[in-house]
């Protein structure tokens, strides 16, 4: 680091000595375009994001030919251990000393809200892909944040509406006891009540609880028709497992509010068949997504999650914007991102709204029964497509000060 600074100093004094002025077309901050990704690399969400996210970003870089305007593109990654303070410190360090031009936020809402603050302070683009909390483009929206893949509002509108329509009028929530779970429960409650349903109770379980059977018995005694799982990752997996074991699925239907394909893969179709879930992407949608997914599979021996596809898309579109304005200047690139259309394997005709929300189609899926699944990872039927702005927060609902 010291060396780099010394070089910079020498270069600057040389420039002063020889009276050279900076050429007007030097619009890049350094010799490389550096993308940073901070995500869960080792804990509960590492399969959904983790190394797979880094590989997806590398695929985007490869698809851009490894360079834009003669500048090499690099990706660096770090593990936030699901701790907001670790994420914020790392982000600050990277912007200050590593010359990171754009930051991609991986899984976990708490860490993303912290990184968004740092990016706003440093005036650098922050593309949040793995986080669910709709606060990123609502109460805490920022001109430097783009929320790329999905959020709690879209999940609630998708699954909540579908389940109430299918006859699930009374709900009980099993909620992960932190910001994300609370937000997801609140958003879903709104949707359920608006659709004529009723929430009869809820229980908050600590993150990573060792056993869910106590909570599930409480849910069962509520006599609700639907058990809404406002949790994620390992918590969702273990609560679905225990619900089957205790025969709760005989009297209540499960509604997983945030379920990734990796969760379905590890639970198996026998346990999860018939379940509704909302997601932003599914690998087995069309020839284009399949082709990309198989490239990913070659490297990681598993199919990509929607978050990993979103990581690819975020990096790819950022680099396209850099190419279009021939600069990595944050303001110019962000302005470009906010006026272009996004077309890639993740979305078609996507665009960034004034609150930072990236608008694209969302999908309501139903998990296939084992006999309908034709190959490994062939798990979903797409039962409904939420077009364009349908799934997202409306202007009337939004509390984002930038979008009024």
């Amino acid at each position, binding site marked *: 680091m010291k060396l780099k600074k010394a070089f910079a100093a020498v270069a600057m004094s040389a420039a002063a000595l020889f009276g050279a002025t900076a050429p007007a077309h030097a619009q890049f901050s350094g010799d490389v375009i550096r993308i940073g990704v901070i995500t869960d690399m*080792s804990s509960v969400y590492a399969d959904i994001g983790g190394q797979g996210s880094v590989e997806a970003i590398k695929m985007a870089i490869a698809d851009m030919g490894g360079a834009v305007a003669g500048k090499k593109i690099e990706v660096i990654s770090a593990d936030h251990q699901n701790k907001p303070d670790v994420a914020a410190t790392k982000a600050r360090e990277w912007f200050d000393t590593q010359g990171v031009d754009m930051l991609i936020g991986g899984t976990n809402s708490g860490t993303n809200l912290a990184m968004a603050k740092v990016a706003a302070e440093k005036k650098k683009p922050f593309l949040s892909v793995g986080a669910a909390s709709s606060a990123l483009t609502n109460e805490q929206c920022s001109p430097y944040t783009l929320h790329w893949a999905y959020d709690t509002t879209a999940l609630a509108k998708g699954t909540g509406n579908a389940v109430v329509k299918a006859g699930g009028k009374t709900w009980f929530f099993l909620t992960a006891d932190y910001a994300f779970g609370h937000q997801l429960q609140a958003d879903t409650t709104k949707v359920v009540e608006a659709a004529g349903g009723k929430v009869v109770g809820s229980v908050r379980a600590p993150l990573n609880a060792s056993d869910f*059977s106590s*909570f599930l018995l*409480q849910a069962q005694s509520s006599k609700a028709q639907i058990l809404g799982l406002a949790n994620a990752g*390992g918590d969702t997996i273990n609560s679905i497992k225990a619900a089957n074991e205790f*025969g709760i699925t005989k009297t209540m239907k499960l509604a997983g509010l945030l379920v990734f394909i990796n*969760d379905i893969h*590890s*639970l198996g179709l026998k346990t999860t068949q018939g379940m509704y879930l909302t997601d932003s992407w599914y690998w087995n949608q069309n020839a284009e997504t399949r082709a990309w997914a198989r490239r990913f599979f070659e490297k990681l021996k598993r199919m990509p999650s929607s978050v990993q596809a979103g990581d690819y898309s975020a990096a790819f579109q950022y680099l396209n914007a850099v190419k279009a304005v021939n600069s990595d200047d944050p303001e110019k690139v962000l302005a470009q991102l906010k006026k272009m259309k996004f077309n890639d394997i993740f979305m078609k005709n996507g665009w960034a709204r004034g609150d930072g929300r990236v608008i694209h189609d969302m999908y309501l899926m139903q998990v296939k029964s084992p006999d309908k699944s034709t190959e490994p990872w062939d798990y979903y039927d797409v039962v409904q497509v939420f077009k364009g702005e349908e799934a997202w927060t409306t202007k009337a609902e939004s509390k984002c000060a930038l979008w009024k």
Partner: protein
Amino acid sequence: MTEIFGIPLQAFLGQLMLGLVNGAFYAMLSLGLAVIFGLLDIVNFAHGALYMVGAFAAWIMLDKWGVNYWAALVLAPLLVGTLGVIIERLFLKRLYGLDPLYGLLLTFGLSLILEGIFRDQFGVSGQSYAVPEALSGATNLGFMVLPNYRAWVVVASITVCLGTWFLIERTRLGAYLRAGTENAKLVQAFGVNVPVMVMLTYGAGAALAALAGVLAAPVIQVTPLMGSNLIIVVFAVVVIGGMGSILGSVITGLLLGVIEGFTRVFYPEASNVVVFVIMAIVLMLRPAGLFGKEG
């Protein structure tokens, strides 16, 4: 309907039962820790990782070679017990007589390595292990529907705990073991091979952890993180029961499982801290633990 502490009797009995099931796991894991600490003076931080390896061993055997649950119940502990013996021979035996901190650091490092290897191979979402055919289904106890498998867990673990206690407290071999920890040199002078005994003890402790892992495999998702999620609570159980006290750790394990279960009903948000609150209180009032001897 009859009510106890404001909750219906049925729900009360149901939660009591669930608490016992979870307590059975705590008991079996803390038992292994207590045996190892009592006889080797090693704080075995790798215990959670060995539990995880046991569960994975069962899953891999079923997935790759079709080895059924009952065989895995014997084979996985044997395998992990052997791993334990290797760990003792290669590493731990160099640490006897040193500050216990070294043993703690070594086993902590080992557990990180084991966890990392499995994470790399299998990912964190984990694998599902199906409940064995003979134990699937559930029994209606009147106050709750108890999955047969959970009932089996309670029976199996209490049998194992009592067996271990009997072996150590009531047999000649156990007497050697206890004597060996009091004064190794003197016992060796009587012709008992103490180093081998210590090695086998660590192996047995590891096997106990693996057995708990196999028992847990059908109940929770088999993941590389399953051990580290549990081990801290188990340590608290050992501390509350009294370090090295065998019967103490078993009773405390069951008791804390039940207390934790009820916390999940009355104040669910506190259910993952209640064990530590109890630990703090016990340490203030009885620093040696509930069943420990004041040193």
